């Protein structure tokens, strides 16, 4: 039993998209731009050429926030979306009826339709793959060349993520919605 979360040192992100590729490879995510569990968002730099504010062109890696109070779980009419024993928000494909309510309710646009099963799919923190094999990192974390991501147990005070969250300022996305995300952006 753990309470998994992830800290992202997002300012280190170089938008190489290795995390997106590793996620697709590890978890067998479908090909196609619309079919992604994780993504790197980018801004165009502010200002006009040649006076561009390069620092404003930040990259923001993102994915399912594995909220403690996930709207997608609340709105699911058949409990297809559920919290597993590690607090990871998962989808039981057998119960999913593809009403797409969760896709509308998720404030982070973290869900998509898997055309092979015609059910909604999302990030699982590699629960079915790497964690099931006993590994302790996710594919996106493992492949990141600039060590943006730190995955771990938020309930374990000795874990690297707990240490990071104790010592670094951080914020969460759309936390005003009361979702209590477990993805933390380090500043």
């Amino acid at each position: 039993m753990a309470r998994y979360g992830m800290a992202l040192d997002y300012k280190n992100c170089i938008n190489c998209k290795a995390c997106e590729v590793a996620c697709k490879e590890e978890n067998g995510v479908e090909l196609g731009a619309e079919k992604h569990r994780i993504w790197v968002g980018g801004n165009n730099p502010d200002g006009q050429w040649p006076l561009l504010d390069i620092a404003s062109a930040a990259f923001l890696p993102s994915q399912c926030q594995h909220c403690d109070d996930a709207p997608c779980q609340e709105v699911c009419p058949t409990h297809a979306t559920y919290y597993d024993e590690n607090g990871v928000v998962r989808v039981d494909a057998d119960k999913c009826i593809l009403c797409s309510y969760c896709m509308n309710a998720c404030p982070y646009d973290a869900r998509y339709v898997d055309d092979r099963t015609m059910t909604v799919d999302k990030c699982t923190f590699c629960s079915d793959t790497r964690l099931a094999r006993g590994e302790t990192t996710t594919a996106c974390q493992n492949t990141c060349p600039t060590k943006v991501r730190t995955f771990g147990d938020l309930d374990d005070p000795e874990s690297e993520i707990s240490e990071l969250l104790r010592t670094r300022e951080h914020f969460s996305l759309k936390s005003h919605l009361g979702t209590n995300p477990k993805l933390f952006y380090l500043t």
Partner: protein
Amino acid sequence: MNFIKKIIPMKDFTLKSLLTFEKTPLNMFMFIVTIALLAAFGWGVGQYLVHSHHAYNVTREHPWGLLIAMYIFFVVSSTGLCIVGSLGDVFGFKDYMAMSKRAILGSIVTILAGFAVIAFEIGHPVTMLIYNVLSPGLTSAIWWMGTLYGLYLTFMIIEFIFLMRNDMKNARIFGLTGLLVGLAAHSNLGGVFGFLNARIISNGVFYPTYFILTAFITGIYLTYLMYGFRYKLQFPEEIKKGLYGLAKIQALLLAILMFFETWKFLTAIYGGMPGRADTAEHILHSGAFLYGEVLCGMLIPFTIMLLTKWQSLKLYVFTSFIGMIGIYFMRYDLVHDTQVKPLQMMKTTEYQLPPEWIEYFPSAAEIAIGFGAIGIFFMLYYFGQKMFDLEGGDH
């Protein structure tokens, strides 16, 4: 058949009599329209069975499309007709007694048409039936909406049976129960949108109440259309009284709706809250809202009723047709406008501009299924008229 007739009185009919009708130009027109719509529905279903959800233009960013809008269109119509039907047999207003049977039949066939649409929108309808019972999501507005609509249909059918048996006491009991369950189901449908914290333009109390209000308006429009067609605009006296009353109620409801809409947009825009104010302004600039919702759905019917002082029943039949176009746009817009603001505002692929507004236009299959279901409504209503005696009832 005799066993069924013992339960619900029916006219004597044969297959041949069901399929024959007076060959007037209007009847022939309706026949051709119905066949065309049913053919479209069949073609759309074929496309869906071959291509699954790929036949639809729904996307990750815009997962609900025209079929959700048409489902809402039909169930709103059903609830509205249920309210109109209840005026007489549940609440005892004498002027509306004669309308109950036809209105309740209408409410049953419209919701069946709605179920036909949603069956091809939900990815796994059989799984839904199983896990709705085995694993109910009690915090989900969709679960409550779906379950309550199932109950509502059951009560409507029982009420209709008692109405046909002229058992007004039981009709009143089941009518009232059905009405309450229907209103609960319908406001839950509003809650499906109102509960969306992520979509601040829809989040809040507006839609659950707005749905009930517009359901009543839709029910009155449809009552005018059904009676206009039934009596070829030559309304008998016992119906006229009810229709005059409905025109006054309609004008009042439209005035309330315009008042609600005005304040919805004022509160959405005031203060410039990001995500809400900009979305509201975007909606205000859309033709579907201005010409569809405001002009067809509200202003034209209201102005005509006001200018004619609620006395031109024939004109209101045509007004109601325009009004129903407006109601369609209300349903389409509420689905589209809920999703029009992207949740993820950063660009995720190179050579792409950051997303601004989500675009959506229904595919041919969506249009065929969504509008084709109107043919299902026409067909079921036609058979209902042929099989049941819907006249009288003013007891």
